[in-house]
């Protein structure tokens, strides 16, 4: 064997022994060996790191929290939906769903930004007290342009708070809502909603579609600016046709000249275990707990409190069962709509 071949063999053995037989220091204590990587903290990685979430999911995290790989705004995450919510070549195909997780924190949307949900893309916070989305949105009408968040068909929103801090908005417009939905099959669960300070304030508007709302806490007020005497506060507004179910909700409307906790204009609205409360902390106003203008109501095991009206019955087909009326009952229909309804002193209140 020639001298040069011997040297080549020796060099190869030397390096291969470093590479394959013993841990090889690389940088500042980081070591590679054939089985994986030894880190300085004594941890060992023997397989490729998995992403922190499965496919079709991603996180939104607070800005400046040092997690640059995630989105820092839910608006941005939905604007770039195709980057994280894709299967095959089609975004959100049939039967596929995506989930946007929002980490604990308060997220102030920029300017008059809206969160526009997409069909089959759920948005999930870490709890109404933990994940708080604040928008500053108003518009010239009660429609989708004046909402902080727009719902979508077959999508869910849960475990977070949506607030419209319209009193801090830089634009003008008389109407503001927290959530507007015209997507069939929209579901909201464990969500807090607040709107404060415009001429026309709506907590949630459900417009003409079937939807289900569960475990809600809605507060719609005009306390911030009592100088607007003609203001309107609707906690939940069911507009147009559609079957809408609300289970377990606290709905408060207060401080507007027309403060109505739940308003029904045309929906088949079913309320189960609801506390609807309208009041006037700024002085006299119209305080109505539930007002059915042109829909059909079913109310079970609820409490309706309004100094002006606890309930306005809008149809002979309305059914109110085992429910507490704290305030006048307006019923112009001849039939029986109530069973097991009672007042503050537990006396029967028929209707």
């Amino acid at each position, binding site marked *: 064997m020639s001298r040069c*071949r011997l040297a080549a063999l020796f060099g*190869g053995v030397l390096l291969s022994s470093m*590479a394959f037989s013993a841990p090889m220091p690389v940088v500042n204590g980081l070591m590679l060996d*054939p089985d994986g990587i030894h880190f300085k903290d004594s941890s060992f990685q023997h397989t490729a790191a998995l992403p922190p979430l499965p496919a079709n999911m991603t996180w939104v995290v607070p800005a400046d929290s040092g997690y640059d790989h995630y989105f820092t705004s839910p608006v941005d995450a939905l604007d770039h939906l195709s980057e994280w919510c894709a299967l095959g070549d089609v975004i959100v195909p049939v039967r596929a769903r995506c989930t946007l997780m929002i980490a604990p*924190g308060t997220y102030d949307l920029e300017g008059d930004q809206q969160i526009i949900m997409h069909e089959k893309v759920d948005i999930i916070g*870490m709890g109404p007290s933990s994940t*708080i989305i604040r928008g500053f949105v108003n518009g010239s009408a009660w429609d989708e342009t004046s909402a902080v968040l727009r719902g979508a068909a077959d999508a869910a929103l849960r475990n977070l708070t949506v607030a419209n801090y319209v009193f801090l908005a830089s634009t003008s417009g008389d109407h503001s809502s927290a959530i507007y939905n015209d997507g069939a099959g929209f579901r909201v669960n464990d969500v807090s909603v607040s709107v404060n300070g415009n001429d026309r304030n709506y907590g949630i508007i459900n417009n003409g579609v079937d939807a289900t709302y569960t475990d809600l806490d809605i507060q719609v007020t005009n306390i911030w600016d009592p100088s607007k005497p003609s203001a309107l506060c609707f906690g939940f507004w069911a507009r147009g046709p559609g079957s809408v179910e609300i289970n377990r909700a606290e709905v408060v409307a207060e401080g507007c000249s027309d403060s109505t906790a739940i308003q029904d204009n045309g929906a088949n609205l079913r309320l189960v275990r609801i506390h609807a409360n309208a009041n006037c902390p700024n002085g006299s106003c119209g305080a109505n707990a539930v007002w059915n203008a042109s829909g059909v109501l079913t109310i079970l*095991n609820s409490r309706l409190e309004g100094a002006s009206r606890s309930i306005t019955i809008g149809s002979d087909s309305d059914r109110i069962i085992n429910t507490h009326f704290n305030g006048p009952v307006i019923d112009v229909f001849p039939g029986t709509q109530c069973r097991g309804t009672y007042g503050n002193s537990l006396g029967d209140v028929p209707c």
Partner: protein
Amino acid sequence: MPRFLVTLFLGSFLLSGSAFCAEPSSYSLGLFSYGIRFPDGTGQDTAALPSLPANMAWVAHAGGKYTSPVDAMAHLADWCVLGGNVVPVDARCTLLIAPGIYELGADQLIMRAGVDIVGMGVRTTVLSGAVDSAALGEESALIRGADHTTLRDLTVVNAGAQHASSGIYNVELSFIIKHAEVVVSGNASLSTGIENKGFGSKFSDITVSATGLTDCVGIRNTGNGSIIINRASISASGCAKNTAITNLNAVGLRLADVDASATATGAQRAVGLWSSGSGLTVLDSKLEGATYSLGIGSTSARIINTQLDGPVGANSAGTQCWGTYDSNLADRGC
């Protein structure tokens, strides 16, 4: 450069190249232009991301940041920091606890304001310990609640066997418990599932049981705190005196869809709900106790559409009940 050194370098390069650049016949750790390949054949082509965003951490028996929730809370500043302050205004933190039983021994889990603790479900995440003290209070509880904080989706078991033992103690504002099971089963003299003294507490979808020797209480609401309990099953048994829910000197207790049941054998006392505070409202519930199903301490109490399975005590003048009935569905006025 001497010729043999050049040859040595080339040999090294050749072999190291074969180790890291070419396809080996069997996998070993390899660095490639696209990233890292591991011996199990997996490849990594981007930097590993943290498992959770900021202000969140996992407790898990393996693979988490901590193996004990007590340890995680003791090192809160290591994972729950924003702007240099621990849990400042508007910041929230969440401690996630993976499935498993976590034995805390005699250590208390002390919650902190703005820091939620979230398990993976009742009986999937179980926090178990044996905490007790000479008297009921903050020292006798396995978990202590905190201001504007939520505890959810887990089971709490305290098997403290000395004089006083409780599952959860709270004296803070707006403490929330959701989707939780609380079991106090160490046969202490004074066994209490949840003791609440905080204002604005809300407990939903919970199951609470307390067993012991002398005085067993499922939920004890005292002080100036108000409390709302929705969809709950509360039981007390095994003690000389058993009370599913006690409302003492408090300003408000509202129950909806609650099954409060106390069980007695022999001379033991069993009371479903006993309230000496004001502002009691009970809706669509079942109160069960051989001694008393219900003790009413105020004329302003309202008990509606509720089954009263047992005598009614301290029945104030006036009407407090509407649509109440007994186990045979006969009217039971009060």
